[in-house]
């Protein structure tokens, strides 16, 4: 029995974090609709349940009961698995993000992280690259020009901004000397000025911009630019398949927000409140910025997007790495 307890702990952790993520995804849609409505002097969804809080549930029920249409000339196999290929990596990335400090229950030490990989950051980037496949295959298999263009844009955009995303946090890896996210959070403990947002402000800005592009959010939502491409890569999708793309987008938003909180705002570090609460507050803060930016900025033009990615973000990240390296060299 005693050997089984670590297994049970892992199962419980996985269940709690995964269910929590899905609930958070559902309520992020509500949160976004509400905040964007407020920005536009509207009220937003407020009819279903108290203050509209059951709206995500109603949406889920609606999506489940809708017809799942497959275009006649679509590649049926790829068309069916593309939403899953986009959804699964988006959810898996949460596994390496530490949501709290180590706690001990009945003598067992439990890390509030599903798996403390020593290459956690690389793992997240690998999964976010995998997410591109879902979108590209969805675009290709739909056999629709809008979907194909959306998929192509998405692949080019995500590959371009992945470089910026990866390079922007090299500075942090250089300072901490570790790829493990739990290590990076511990490195930022103590004073608030140990948070990397104060040590690497430029990197933070570049990371967040790249992250928005990586998750296909406004102002970088060119893969689904509705004024040009109808619905982009998910033009032909309906029902829960469409719902999975939607969930994937919000799941990767949450993952990137928690990554930003972990890397730059000290993860679960913070005074008075329990660590988990601090982590959640920071994640919600980033989600709010996501929504806030969405409610403010118009969409980039495609050539602007590419020029911005290659000629601004990437050179600045390289410069940031150089300066960080120089400072580390001089410090020692």
């Amino acid at each position, binding site marked *: 029995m005693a050997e089984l307890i670590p297994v049970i702990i892992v199962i419980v952790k996985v269940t709690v974090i995964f269910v929590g993520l899905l609930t958070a995804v559902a309520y992020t849609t509500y949160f976004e609709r509400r905040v964007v409505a407020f920005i536009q*002097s509207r009220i937003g969804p407020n009819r279903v349940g108290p203050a509209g809080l059951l709206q995500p549930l109603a949406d889920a029920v609606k999506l489940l009961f809708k017809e799942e249409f497959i275009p006649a000339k679509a590649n049926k196999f790829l068309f069916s698995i593309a939403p899953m290929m986009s959804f699964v990596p988006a959810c898996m990335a949460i596994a390496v993000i530490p949501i709290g400090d180590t706690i001990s229950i009945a003598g067992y030490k439990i890390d509030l992280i599903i798996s403390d990989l020593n290459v956690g950051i690389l793992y997240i980037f690998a999964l976010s690259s995998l997410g591109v496949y879902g979108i590209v295959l969805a675009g290709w298999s739909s056999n629709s020009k809008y979907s194909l263009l959306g998929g192509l844009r998405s692949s080019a955009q995500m590959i371009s901004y992945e470089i910026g995303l990866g390079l922007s946090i090299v500075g942090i890896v250089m300072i901490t000397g570790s790829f493990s996210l739990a290590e990076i959070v511990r490195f930022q403990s103590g004073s608030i000025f140990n948070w990397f947002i104060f040590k690497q402000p430029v990197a933070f800005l570049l990371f967040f911009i790249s992250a928005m592009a990586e998750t296909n959010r406004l102002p970088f939502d060119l893969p689904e630019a509705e004024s040009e491409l109808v619905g982009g890569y998910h033009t032909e999708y309906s029902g829960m398949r469409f719902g999975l793309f939607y969930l994937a987008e919000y799941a990767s938003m949450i993952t990137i927000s928690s990554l930003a909180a972990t890397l730059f705002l000290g993860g679960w570090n913070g005074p008075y409140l329990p660590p988990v609460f601090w982590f959640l507050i920071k994640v919600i803060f980033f989600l709010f910025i996501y929504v*806030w930016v969405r409610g403010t900025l118009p969409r980039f033009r495609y050539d602007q997007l590419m020029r911005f990615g290659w000629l601004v973000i990437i050179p600045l990240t390289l410069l940031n790495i150089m300066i960080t390296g120089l400072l580390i060299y001089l410090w020692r």
Partner: protein
Amino acid sequence: MWATIKSIFLAIPTGLSVTFKHLFRRKVTTRYPDVKPVFEDRYRGLHYLSRYPDGRERCVCCGLCAKACPADAIYMEPTETETGERYPKVFEINELRCIFCGFCEEACPEEAIFLGHEFEFSAGDRGDFIYTKEMLLANFDKIEKDRVAKNIKPFIRQDKFQFKKPADPVH
């Protein structure tokens, strides 16, 4: 490149501050079924046919409203009481034809027809939109009851119109 950097550090924060201020603004949405809109007095909604304080209907079926109506929405057939008072036997308004211009109430010499504030009259059948005299009078009774309850001064002339028997043309 310089323009891009300038836009990041200047234009975008300005825009963000504008939208942030909007978060706390008064919302413009009308929560319609929960909160009914308040109309000005001049609002033109569903018609009603008014009565004298003693309950007699004012309409004398002169047909001016039907003549004034640009949409041909009003139909009436006159008849008389034994005392010689004209009144409409049939008075119908097709609310689907009506364009709510208010010409009928302007044309009316008897202050009989008015456009009220009621706007929520829907039906599942086109035939239900033909409002008969009884329905239009019932609208007035409802409005009048509400007016009395709220103690609002009536805007229609209240003095009772005394019908005089026409002089015998022979004598």
